[in-house]
């Protein structure tokens, strides 16, 4: 009824090819962006620092993995390690060149992760599917080992951890323990929104189509002029770049300090689950997945006591874990293609509602 494209005629291919061809979608995304911009006015420091910032960062990491697994079809379990490469290289850059803007460092640190991604992506030219996942597992363990065993990476700190120094941009402190949640939130929001837009552009153009060709039918792709080497390695590079930037932001804007264990296989799995629950091959799904896995447990933990259910903190945590586990199973049974597919089906139904068909 209200979500309908009737009367919205496209008179040019440019209009037909825009990201949100339906007016209601454009209004929706504008409303979401305005809410995101105004969030610090209403939200507490806890909401910004513990929910909004990590949600955005993990959504970006999920987008990174989605490029590789969802769009290019190369299964990877090394996401955590690639995020770690971004975090550690950002830390090194910030300490070696302290005078350079930290946002530049964060964007640069992704290139180191991209390089690591290309190196560990080389086996993908010969190996497919689960076997490739095993080789990316090697990346995960090797890089994690590097974070522990190469003291140069953490500047020989006795704790073995990296601690984020305070850095200012335009006179506002945005990193380090003293930075306000609002400042960090806006930086993260800006980077995530801009990168999501750039990646969307990449995916709807020639490069993204090449990735999907390799994913859907690699033999036909090659017979149509796609070079598997370039398509696969570019997917690894872009994916790892995005993951690296997300990893750098994870430490610099969320954790404030981190040790190698942060970038363990657990993080890789967490991001992979976000991608799968959200929907492989969908950018909006990456946000859904990150919200589901990151925000829902926190809401449950905070929400149950708030409802007057008086239970010990430890019990709440475990109950939340069980509920999340059950919900994951439920959603995967209802829709194996993830929340993004449910969302798409919902929109399709809404377009013809209240009639059963168009």
């Amino acid at each position, binding site marked *: 009824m209200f979500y309908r494209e009737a009367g919205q005629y496209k008179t040019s291919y440019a209009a037909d090819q825009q990201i949100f061809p339906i007016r209601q979608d454009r209004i929706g995304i504008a409303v979401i962006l305005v809410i995101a911009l105004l969030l610090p006015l209403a939200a507490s420091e806890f909401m910004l620092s513990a929910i909004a910032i990590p949600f955005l960062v993990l959504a970006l990491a999920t987008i990174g993995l989605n490029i590789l697994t969802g769009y290019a079809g190369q299964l990877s379990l090394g996401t955590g390690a690639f995020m770690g490469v971004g975090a550690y290289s950002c830390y090194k850059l910030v300490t070696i060149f302290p005078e350079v803007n930290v946002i530049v460092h964060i964007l640069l640190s992704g290139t180191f992760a991209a390089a690591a991604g290309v190196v560990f992506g080389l086996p993908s030219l010969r190996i497919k599917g689960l076997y490739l996942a095993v080789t990316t597992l090697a990346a995960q363990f090797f890089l994690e080992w590097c974070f522990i065993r190469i003291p140069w990476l953490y500047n020989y700190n006795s704790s073995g951890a990296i601690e984020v120094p305070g850095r200012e941009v335009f006179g506002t402190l945005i990193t380090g323990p003293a930075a306000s949640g609002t400042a960090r939130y806006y930086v993260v929001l800006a980077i995530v929104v801009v990168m999501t837009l*750039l990646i969307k552009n990449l995916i709807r*153009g*020639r490069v993204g*189509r090449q990735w999907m*060709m390799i*994913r*859907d039918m690699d033999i036909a792709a*090659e*017979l149509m002029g796609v070079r598997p080497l370039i398509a696969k390695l570019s997917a690894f590079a872009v994916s790892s770049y995005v993951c690296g930037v997300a990893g750098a932001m994870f430490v610099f804007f969320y954790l404030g300090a981190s040790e190698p264990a942060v970038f363990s296989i657990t993080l890789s799995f967490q991001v992979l689950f976000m991608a799968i629950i959200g929907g492989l091959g969908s950018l909006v799904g990456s946000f859904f997945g990150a919200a589901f896995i990151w925000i829902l447990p926190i809401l449950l933990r905070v929400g149950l006591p708030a409802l007057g259910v008086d239970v010990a903190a430890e019990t709440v945590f475990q109950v939340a874990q069980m509920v999340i586990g059950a919900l994951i199973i439920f959603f995967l049974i209802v829709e194996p293609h993830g929340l993004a597919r449910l969302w798409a089906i919902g929109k399709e139904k809404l377009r013809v509602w209240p009639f059963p068909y168009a």
Partner: protein
Amino acid sequence: MNAFVDPVGMAGHSGLTKGEVLLRVDNVSLSFGGVKAITNISFDILKGEVRAIIGPNGAGKTSMLNVINGFYHPQEGTITWRGQVRRKMRPYEAASHGIARTFQNVALFKGMTTLDNIMTGRGLKMNKNFFWQCLHWGPALNEEIEHRRKVEEIIDFLEIQAIRKTPVGRLPYGLQKRVELARALAMEPELLLLDEPMAGMNLEEKEDMSRFILDVNQQFGTTIALIEHDMGVVMDLSDRVVVLDYGRKIADGPPEEVQSNQDVIDAYLGVPH
């Protein structure tokens, strides 16, 4: 400009005139381990003709197509393309030399819409770099729209406007075959290889597809090599037919000549030994 310097931009414009030899296969043999798929086969494909390759199952027809577009490399023999002996090449190089194909079992990109599938055929002709692609603005957007226009022409030509935005996985089989033809046409190939374009189709769909193949051949001047089991279709469409059996060539010539060839009849019907 020499066609071999810039194969990407020159696909379909080799400068050959109708009737000249576009592709020649000389004494090609292909084996997988101990299995001989193709034994000492020679034939040629002339610019602008419809060339059929027929034979019983397992005769080596699809292997022959795979040799032509670089997916298999024959152990013996040479392939001459546009008058030059071709070196060993990868499939994507064959694609950039103007060879496109469709597959026996539809090989569309299932996760993409019809439009995107056909747009993939334009990939070799798009050259705006990575950073323009990220911006999707200016030259990259113009390029995208310019190729969309070309793709829309093909969509009109094959009468698939209604399924433009439909994911190809949802389409019925006959339409999938048609989208696959559209995707190959989007490459503007000089040589189009069709591997059983009518397999599994009903009479009406076969008639449609036959009309499209003839239209492609006549309107665009595309040279076509097709594998097909429906003899009625083969005899009506093709200018010349080459017949394979057990990896060997047993006949080559105009349809009516091949039809009356005793070896061909034996191959199809079997002979008592």
